[in-house]
């Protein structure tokens, strides 16, 4: 599949059409993360219009978008940029293009879930800070939270965490599952 075809497939999945965007910039203008993005929402649409899939996949935008949907809400043509960003992020992940910190966090997060079934802050933040080489991030809040017992080492695990781990594995391998020959899609 060429990049053009891949891009078109992502656009179709996201239900976004290049021609709907006339580059007014209302999306980027209101995006809370715009300052940090190397490709603002309007830029994502521009890249889609000129067929530059690589710039989208290599942008930090796809990892920084918070999914607040302010852009779609205000867009005069209802262009669903976050949906396109989401599809692009999955494609980037498939190709192994990651933003380092996001990769660390998301993988730690899922590992955490597989272990406990719920989010364990100490484990999540601790592991992330170590693996992302940011030992001091938010450290100033730890004494307060520890002293008030807001966070702690006590595990809060769900009973069926083994089942949940399997569920997560099924979800992670869904693409393979779905295309398995014995499965008949409705």
């Amino acid at each position, binding site marked *: 599949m060429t990049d053009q075809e891949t891009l078109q497939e992502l656009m179709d999945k996201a239900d976004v059409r290049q021609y709907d965007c006339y580059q007014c910039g209302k999306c980027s203008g209101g995006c809370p993360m715009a300052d940090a993005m190397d490709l603002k929402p309007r830029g994502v649409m521009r890249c889609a219009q000129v067929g530059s899939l690589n710039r989208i996949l290599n942008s930090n935008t796809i990892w920084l978008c918070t999914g607040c949907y302010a852009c779609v809400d205000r867009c005069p043509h209802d262009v669903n940029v976050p949906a396109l960003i989401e599809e692009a992020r999955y494609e980037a992940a498939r190709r192994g293009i990651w*933003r380092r910190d996001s990769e660390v966090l998301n993988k730690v997060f899922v590992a955490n879930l597989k272990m406990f079934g719920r989010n364990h802050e100490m484990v999540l933040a601790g592991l992330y800070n170590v693996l992302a080489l940011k030992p001091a991030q*938010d450290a*100033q809040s730890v004494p307060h939270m520890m002293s008030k017992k807001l966070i702690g080492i006590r595990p809060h695990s769900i009973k069926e965490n083994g089942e949940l781990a399997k569920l997560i594995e099924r979800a992670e391998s869904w693409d393979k599952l779905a295309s398995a020959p014995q499965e008949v899609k409705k």
Partner: protein
Amino acid sequence: MIRYAYFPGCASESTALSTTLANNFVFGRIGIDLVEIKDWNCCGATSAHTLSEPLGLALPARSLAWAEKNLPELDVVTGCASCYARLKLTNYRVRQDESARYMVEKIIEAPYEAKREVYNFLDILSPADVRGRIEEQIVRRFKNLKAACYYGCLNIRPAEVTGAKDRENPQAMDELARLTGAEPVDWGFKTECCGAAHQNDAAFETRPLARRILENARACGADVILTACPMCQLNLEMRQAEYARKRKDEKRGKASFPLLDVVLPPPEKETIPVLSITELLALSMGAGSGRLRLDVHHVPVSGVLSKGFRDENESEVMI
């Protein structure tokens, strides 16, 4: 008795201690029974759907499917905007798209038809009869307390999923705050994203989001920010010392040592307390600050309490 299937969300067990206590107090008082979904699991926000759509839908679906099977008469409610967004979206996608439902059911290995609705606390506290019950329970009203109601982006958007009508200046929380005597301020960041979703993996990039919200609330004269989500609440509250130092640094033009944030908390006028709307309601319903464990807040809430209450029910003041 109004009953809901309740999805507490991970924060309820840890960082949102005071909010959880307040929730229990308020819903107990007004007679709304929250039946906890048994063995609920994390909804996956924000990482699960960052990684893949199947995981993003399957994690919430597991808890929702349990509720649908075991509490078939009950709609689901959650007190966290992130959880709400994920649960609501899962519900919406499963209803809207047969192939999504097929996928979800295969992964969770259970039937799930999205028969019931998903609500957040603002949804279930806003109907007129519930407001009436709240009003009945209110024993004291705040005096001169200016509140900036922060709804959070995920409680409101995307509109096609949430059905929210006014996405820029919603009023539901303002109305609830008014019941406690607080005066909601007109400000500009009610639904602007606070960046809580990326507070770990993009800490540097999301700092300005929370800062802008806090600064606009203060500039518009608010004494307190009210939230409807423990994630927003924590994110807005946790780093206020850091922001205060940065503000000072920006003024001076040079950087100071970050560890000062722990040792020397900023003066109160530099910070703004952040309470959940249920905490405010609980206080107004007579709960004491000790009972609500308001001491767990990163930013002291004494500023709110020192505003005091109107003297209409003086005898019941228990602070």
